């Protein structure tokens, strides 16, 4: 009791000023939270669109703390759709804004993610290490109060984005028309997030702001364009793959849950989602450029926003077009024994999500770090996937896009148009930020 009292008194004295920490936090602290979130997502098998949404709101909580304390960091109010004007909590003082930003991220991820309790455990470990480097208990307590205050506001903003209304809607029904999407082997899982287009985007006017060209019309006539596409997928993405193409396809697989089916025994093989992969690249760039704490938060936030909006418009396309996957079409019309290199993810084909989100992310990262940014991507090294070297984000995005063709899970038009759509989303995000004069 006594101890708390003295803390409170101390708080009174230092009201109004925030203390300098023993040593400033860095981009590594930001990337650590993101990495831990990705681990929890793997555990929970969080689907790709939802994962991006978790990243976005979590980063926004950190960003909001900074924007209230760092004049260089502009508020998202007026930039993002419906983003509230959040007044800073005047009654809280003695906090450290960087610490508070990290804690706001933990608090938010802790509430959003199904196994959020693991994030709160991580938060505890993080605070222990802060204490070791000299953060006082008072500063930690104040920073946490601040973080919780902001986190609550961000969670309220998230709660109103329409995601939780989704379970009101009728569940997806297969169309059963020629050329329409069907469940895919081996687990025949139900489609992921058929109503993600009803989630409020951050920067888009609507999910349908950048509707791409329609997919090549389905046809089984040998002379049709579609059939040629089908043949192309069959010959080029099957046994005809070169080793390097296989390596690339595996590198960008990013399937959160590939099911291996052994009799009664099903085993889910897990990887990080495409969004988590690009968050990883973001933090590689931050580290390589020794980005400041603020910049790291900002770039992570903007990339996460871009990812979410990319998924929203891509998912709008997917469930509007309901196009058949190569695996289904090839097995039905060419070779019943054909198997794609990668396991087909459980949602319609058009357009390629990896193409959209990779391109959007590349546009944003190029804005922050410049073109011809050379880096080594070792994000999935823990999954037995060797690192790859890239000479620019754009090159990486293009490779990610074409990898879906080699993996046998996308047709070429879904990839080409996916890149176009992703570029539009990335630029839209940047435009919105510029309008505010960021």
């Amino acid at each position, binding site marked *: 009791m006594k101890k708390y009292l003295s803390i409170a008194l101390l708080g009174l004295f230092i009201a109004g000023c925030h203390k300098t920490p023993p040593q400033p936090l860095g981009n590594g602290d930001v990337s650590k939270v993101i990495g831990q979130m990705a681990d929890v997502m*793997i*555990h*929970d*098998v969080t689907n790709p669109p939802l994962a991006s949404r978790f990243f976005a709101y979590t980063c926004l909580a950190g960003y909001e703390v900074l924007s209230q304390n760092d004049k260089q960091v502009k508020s998202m109010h007026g930039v993002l759709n419906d983003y509230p004007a959040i007044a800073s909590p005047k009654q809280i003082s003695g906090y450290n804004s960087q610490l508070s930003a990290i804690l706001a991220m933990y608090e938010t991820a802790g*509430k959003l*993610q*199904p*196994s*959020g*309790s693991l994030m709160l455990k991580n938060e505890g470990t993080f605070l222990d290490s802060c204490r070791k480097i000299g953060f006082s208990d008072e500063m930690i307590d104040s920073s946490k109060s601040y973080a919780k205050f902001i986190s609550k506001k961000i969670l309220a903003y998230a709660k109103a984005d329409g*995601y*939780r*209304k*989704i*379970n*009101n809607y*009728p*569940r*997806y*029904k*297969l169309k059963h028309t020629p050329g329409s999407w*069907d*469940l895919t*082997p*081996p687990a*025949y*899982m*139900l489609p992921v997030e058929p109503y993600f287009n009803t989630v409020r985007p951050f920067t888009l006017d609507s999910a349908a702001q950048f509707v791409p060209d329609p997919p090549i019309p389905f046809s089984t006539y040998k002379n049709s364009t579609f059939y040629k596409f089908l043949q192309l997928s069959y010959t080029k993405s099957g046994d005809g793959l070169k080793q390097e193409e296989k390596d690339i396809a595996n590198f960008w697989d990013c399937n959160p*849950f590939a*099911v291996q*089916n*052994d*009799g*009664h*025994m*099903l*085993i*889910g*093989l*897990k*990887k990080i989602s495409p969004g988590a992969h690009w968050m990883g690249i973001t933090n590689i760039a931050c580290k390589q450029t020794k980005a400041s704490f603020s910049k790291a938060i900002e770039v992570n936030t903007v990339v996460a926003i871009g990812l979410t909006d990319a998924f929203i418009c891509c998912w709008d396309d997917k469930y509007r077009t309901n196009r058949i996957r190569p695996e*289904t079409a090839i*097995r*039905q019309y060419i070779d*019943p*024994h054909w198997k794609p290199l990668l396991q087909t993810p459980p949602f319609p084909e058009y357009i390629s999500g990896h193409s959209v989100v990779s391109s959007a992310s590349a546009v944003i990262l190029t804005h922050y770090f410049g073109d011809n940014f050379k880096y080594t991507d070792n994000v999935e090294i*823990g*999954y*037995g996937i060797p690192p790859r070297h890239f000479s620019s984000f754009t090159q990486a995005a293009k490779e990610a896009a074409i990898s879906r063709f080699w993996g046998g899970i996308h047709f070429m038009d879904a990839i080409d148009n996916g890149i176009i759509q992703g570029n539009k989303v990335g630029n839209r995000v940047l435009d919105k930020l510029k309008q505010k004069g960021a």
Partner: protein
Amino acid sequence: MCTLVMSAGCSHEPGTDSTQPLFKLLPQEQTHIDFANTLTEGLNTNVLMYEYFYNGGGVATGDLNGDGLPDVYFTGNMTDNKLYLNQGHMQFKDITAEVGVAGRPGPWKTGVTMADVNGDGKLDLYLCYSGKVRAEKRINQLFINQGNDANGNPMFKDMTADYGLDFPSFSTQAYFFDYDRDGDLDLLLVNHNPARISIIDDIYVKDVSAKRDAESGIRLLRNDNNRFTDITTNAGIVNNPLSYGLAAGIADINGDGWPDIYVSNDYSVPDRLYINNAKGAFTDELQKQIGHTSFYSMGNDVTDINNDGKPDIYTLDMLPEDNKRQKLLFGIDNYEAFDLNLRVGFYYQYMRNMMQVNNGDNTFSEVGQLAGVSNTDWSWSPLFADYDNDGWKDLFVSNGYTRDYTNMDFLKFMGDNLKDRRVMRQDLLNIVNQMPSSQVKSYLFKNNGNTTFANVSQQWGITLPSNSNGAAYVDLDNDGDLDLVVNNINQPAFVYENQAAKQNSNHYLAISLKGAGGNTQGIGAKVSIYNGGKRQYLEQMPTRGFQSSVSPVLHFGLGKDKQIDSLRITWQRGGSQLLTNVKADKQITLNEQDAKGSNPASQPVKPIFKEIPSPIISAESDNTTNDFKRQPLLINSISFSGSVLAKADVNGDGFEDVYVGGHDDKAGVLYLQQKDGKFAAKATAAFEADKKSTDAAAVFFDANNDGKPDLYVCSGGYADYKPDDALLQDRLYLNDGKGNFTKAKDALPKMASSKSCVKVADINGDGFVDLFVGGRVIPGQYPETPESYILINDGKGKFSNQTAAYNPALKNIGMVTDAAWVDMNGDKKPDLIVAGEWMPLTVFENSNGKLSDATTKYFDKKYTGWWNCIQVSDVNRDGHPDIVAGNLGLNTQCKASDTEPAELLYKDFDDNGSVDPILCFYIQHTSYPYVTRDEMLDQMSMMRTRFPDYKSYADATVDKIFTPEELQGVKKLSANHLATTLFISNGQGKLREAALPIQAQYSPVYTITPLDYDRDGKNDLLLCGNMNHARIRFGKYDANYGVLLKGDGKGGYSYVSQQQSGFSLKGDVRGVLPLNDLLLFSMDKGKLKAYKPQ
């Protein structure tokens, strides 16, 4: 001596002596049976390398050396097989090494059977092999009994090649029987694919079905003078890689004298019901005769379970009994994947044991849940036999799995440790090694004699958890009761001594068969015994259950009967013999040579009713609506109510005309009856204009007092309508007397609920017909209460809503399904009875312009059920109305009683604008939500953080799932009674429950039709229903083919068999209309069927 012992046991009722269970597990020291099926797991020997690594071994029993004592053989998958010679007094001697019947050492031995293959009177032994081993290690072995050596030991010689059986297979078990009735034993080899085929869709199945697979597919081999010839293809047996045969049950299932076969297939490959066409081939009639099957079908048993003389079929699966293991096993109902299985022809399969009762007319009613034997976890061998000698076959089920990897947490979270796929195999093995065994016990069920069973496992002596597989029953000590021998993984085999002979005073009769020719065991012989009105029936087929063969001595328990009136045996080749006044408590031998007669041809029963083409043709709609997509936590689907039927002579020509209601964008149609009894559709623009509505009920009555029957049609429906949809408005069509109908304008108030029924009566006694209209549901908002209506007629055909005046409580009385106006209290005024889902049967007395709830005056408690329909008539002719009410029935997972009610909690828990209905019912005396974790998370995203894994949800009750704040304001519906029930009035007009035959509980009852089919002046009943559009986890309800009940005029009813009644209504009956001398049946998608007495 014997009598003394038995009378001493008189005071003991079976199973009631708590100190002495029926079965006593004998210690190894006494029996000297030390066999254990020990598995050694390694990188190359584990479940990842071979799918059926934990399926266990078999047991075979029979008297090999002719000393009158049955000997026992065990197979070990990896360890050595053992043969134990019975030395009497429950002592055995291992003679495996001496007699040359050990088989090959090492992996992988499976089933074993004893049969006199060469017909020399001595039992031979056939051993099955499988596993991921080289082909030469998978050649099954036939050991021919060479007779005894000087020490009295039976000597064996491997003669596989001599008999033409030296080919490799992946075998589960071999079945010797005389399929062509030529007097020798042919061979059915049940094989399985050693690898899992995981891609099971239309494209793949079509492709792979065309491939033959001699090693994995099932084969039939004909015995030609002790050489076996493969006749699989010509015999019509499906042989392809889609084969996971785990058992066959062989019996004369359709009673035509020729042996038929039921094959259990694991995974999604469908089971088969091979009917012998008497010309050397079989036809799979499963989908014609059986409504649904087990999913992962394991062992089976085909035998007469209900003592009606017809073989029934029982298949095992893996549905656990307790809530926790169920919750760890189930994800979310995947309707699309289920439909895919249907599309590829894999039929309706659900994960639970199925008990298919043979209706004798080539249909089966699956009643495993009603019987209480549907949930026995991961089980292997079912063995029906009369263990307590009371005259009814009881049931033993072996159980257990060495590695419990069905756990959903395993699927979802074990992958956390498998990130690097290059080292997966070792990692997976490590994980496999960490998996605990399922730790369950085997089951014993006592047959209650009415198609239900009581779980007496503990009482009868099963106390140890084990991983038990093959098993056999046999009277090892010849004391007149059946002992049990069970093969266990990693644990010594169990020998259970049956103590019935010591404990109770029940009698028995054992019959040993001496067949003529090559079939010396008399396989396929049928024995019926009769005493008083009782009958029992057995067929000789020792190979049954799982990978095992039981005693070839037939065993009948006789209860208190010291003798039987008669016994008839009919041998497989047709010879028949009748014995009379056979004394009990001994073993008799029947010789085929003595069977000089032939089985008197059974009288062909002329069914009472016969299906004829419906005089009104109504096509089935192609409606593929799935109500569970609209509200995933809906309990039962509400759509699919078919074409409603109403009749009246609309044009005054003296013939009854029929209105067939509209649905699925098809307008209702008026059919005018012609002089010749044919029906002609009459185009009616008014009906056409309303075709977007779903007709839920229709009635003809004179609404505007012009003497002509007008038509009132209720609008209903669920899936495609919004709440308050304008298409839910009811309609009144006025008749000009010539059958021309026009819609009455402004005749009805606004009525926006989806409705179920309209019932007419002159409520206020003013001479004009008034109405009660029942509200069924609010589309998309189940189980919120819809509005019901009292509509009063102004005499000119204009109706006003006066519900509030008559009783405000009626407005939101519940989800009404049916109602009736009847004078309950004899005051000559119509009173109202209302029934509904989650509603008590409620009586409203009509007096002084009010309808007052008088339920307690008539019922001694509230009978709250999932009522579908009610029918009121004076069944016992005492002047007081009696009620028959159709309910869900008792053949379901959901159970309800006064102390353990089913409950439905509902509220918008997550405040997202949709109601969240949570069904709860009791499992093992605790109420749990039926909703699985994934379904809960799918309904409410806030639950994702609450239950990050399956384990955390597995034991959760409602108060653990929701916070006290969330439970504030929760609404609750409750049901204490799910049986279809007859309520009979007493002299005071009070209604009390009276028993209906068990067949009334087979399936949900949606129609109750009173009739007097035999014209004896007594009220008979026809109950129809079923629910084919059900939640996957509940499974479709299809066991009712039209249950005809003969009344005794006093309120007693007896079931008329399907064979006799002639009803064979497959599918959902939603309406029945007696028309002239016909019965017209309206099915769920609008098809009409007709039956006529003959």
